[in-house]
């Protein structure tokens, strides 16, 4: 094959992938500007009406605030645990390390509906079902592998001599962790943390099982609204999600640089 046709094939595949991945987003965002009363694409006309509507809808507003709260709880729980666990997995020769790895994979292999029902039973037993914060904890549990992997890959890329160097500089164990190890894996912590936040914002299935009318989060609220009629305001809400995700990516780029994020295995 010549270089030209190789490049042609390469770019065809690249653009095909980009298109496939972005079509749903484009349609949803486009549909949110329609003037029609039913969701439609391409949009008929152009209006910000639906954004006005969702901005004024109390149920959506409150669900959004609840989602922010839940995501924050998830972040607070998962960052310390995920960071320490990720470091431990990368740094120490742990007994049953393989078993631990598999265990950490479990949330992925068990269907979310299973995890959700399990947590519903446990939370019910503990009589905390109906509070908002347990949902954050639950989302931290099911998504924990993301931040653990993110941190442990950053830790794996760290020169292990750095910690020895710190101790020969006079740093004790805690000082070594605080001044050398933690800053070293910070890109992984930030990446993992943002991922946890965005995943918690949009998590649906487990949230559905753990929420009730007083604690409904945004994805669940959207689902509730769909059950009656699909109106363009739902497209507008979805567009807000897209904006949040884009914001997270922008933040990541500013904080750690996307190239580090893309490099982490």
């Amino acid at each position, binding site marked *: 094959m010549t270089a030209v046709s190789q490049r042609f094939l390469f770019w065809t595949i690249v653009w095909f992938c980009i298109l496939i991945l972005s079509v749903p987003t484009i349609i949803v965002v486009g549909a949110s500007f329609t003037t029609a009363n039913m969701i439609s694409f391409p949009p008929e006309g152009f209006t910000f009406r639906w954004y006005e509507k969702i901005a004024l809808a109390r149920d959506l507003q409150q669900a959004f605030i609840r989602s922010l709260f839940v995501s924050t709880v998830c972040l607070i729980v998962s960052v310390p645990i995920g960071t320490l666990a990720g470091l431990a997995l990368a740094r120490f020769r742990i007994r049953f390390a393989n078993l631990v790895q598999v265990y950490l994979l479990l949330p992925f292999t068990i269907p979310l509906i299973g995890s959700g029902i399990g947590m519903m039973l446990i939370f019910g037993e503990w009589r905390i079902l109906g509070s908002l914060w347990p949902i954050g904890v639950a989302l931290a549990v099911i998504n924990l592998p993301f931040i653990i992997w993110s941190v442990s890959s950053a830790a794996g890329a760290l*020169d292990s*001599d*750095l910690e*020895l*160097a*710190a*101790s*020969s*500089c*006079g*740093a*004790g164990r805690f*000082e070594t962790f605080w*001044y*050398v190890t933690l*800053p*070293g894996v*910070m890109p992984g912590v930030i990446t993992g943390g943002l991922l946890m936040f965005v995943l918690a914002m949009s998590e649906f299935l487990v949230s559905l099982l753990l929420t009730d009318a007083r604690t409904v989060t945004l994805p669940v609220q959207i689902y509730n609204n769909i059950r009656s009629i699909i109106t363009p305001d739902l497209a507008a809400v979805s567009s807000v999600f897209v904006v949040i995700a884009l914001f997270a990516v922008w933040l990541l780029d500013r904080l750690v640089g996307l190239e580090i994020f893309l490099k982490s295995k």
Partner: protein
Amino acid sequence: MTDRSAAQYAPADGAREIAVRASHVSMDFGGGVLAVDDASFELEKGRFLTILGPSGSGKTTLLRMIAGFQKQTAGEITINGKAVGAAPPHRRSIGMVFQRLALFPHMTAAENVAFPLKMRRFDPRTIPDRVNGFLELVKLGGYGNRRINELSGGQQQRVAIARALVFEPDLLLLDEPLAALDVKLREEMQLEFRRIQHELGVTTINVTHDQREALVVSDDIIVMDGGRIQQHAKPVELYRAPTNPFVAGFLGLSSFVEGKATADGDLQSGDLKVLGVSAGDVTEGVPVIAAIRAEQIRLARSAPALGACEMQLDATVIDTIFEGERQMYIVEAASLPGTTFRVYHHDPEGFGLFDIGDPVAIGWNRRDLKIFRHAAE
């Protein structure tokens, strides 16, 4: 610091002050072979010691035990008269330059150098001046605000040296920091290490596999192989009077002859008596191996042209290699079949004087051929 005051009261007649003493230190990682096997040595204060050996010789393990990164399984290490035992690295006053430097990538050059001062609780008001002073010492004045990845390889070396020395440790350890540099930079940094070490007078232990570096920078050299100390001597002595065939072969370029010891201390190979001097415990009839350096063999077109060599042999040129400042010949002596000699020939006019297959004569003086007892196996 009772040890220091004791040293002050020591007689002023040049009594040696020992900075580091290792006695019967061993390291057993399991697996039946000791990584370091019963190593004992003393290092005087202010001197530059190089531990030289091939990879797997145990030299890095020995260094790491001195640093406190690993605990020896037997023996004792004493620094300034105090047994360090199980003291963790941060409780030892040791500066270290690592092979991969291990500079903190999220800090500037100055922050890297300030780190040990911060950790060792130096008066914060004195830190900036001290950091600048040491950056000046390593010729990096004005580079303090650069991030590590903005510095060249040589500059990073200098930051690592400043970081290791800034708190004026009792001991400086160098773990092959020059191994990754290209030849020019390496030779420049070797001289830098020497200059800085002389300037500060800090006791230094360097680890390397580079014999040239060891000879250039050191006051003392320990040669290690197979976890054991093979020889501990000053560079000139080590080079001129190796005490075993390993050292003879590891430093410089040597050729070897095998045979049996004669009554008067020479080497008998077949009908030929090879003249040399025996080093160590050699008695008549024991199997021996002799070593001679490439620059100590003379080479000429015929025996009369050799001049006054006590040992003379006819030989044939097998290969000839141009090395820039000299020509190296590989020759085989007619009376020692299967034994090749490597000979340096420094002759400004006549490079390429001999060709492959040419008959030549080689010769040496008795004192230059060292005869060692052959290892038991």
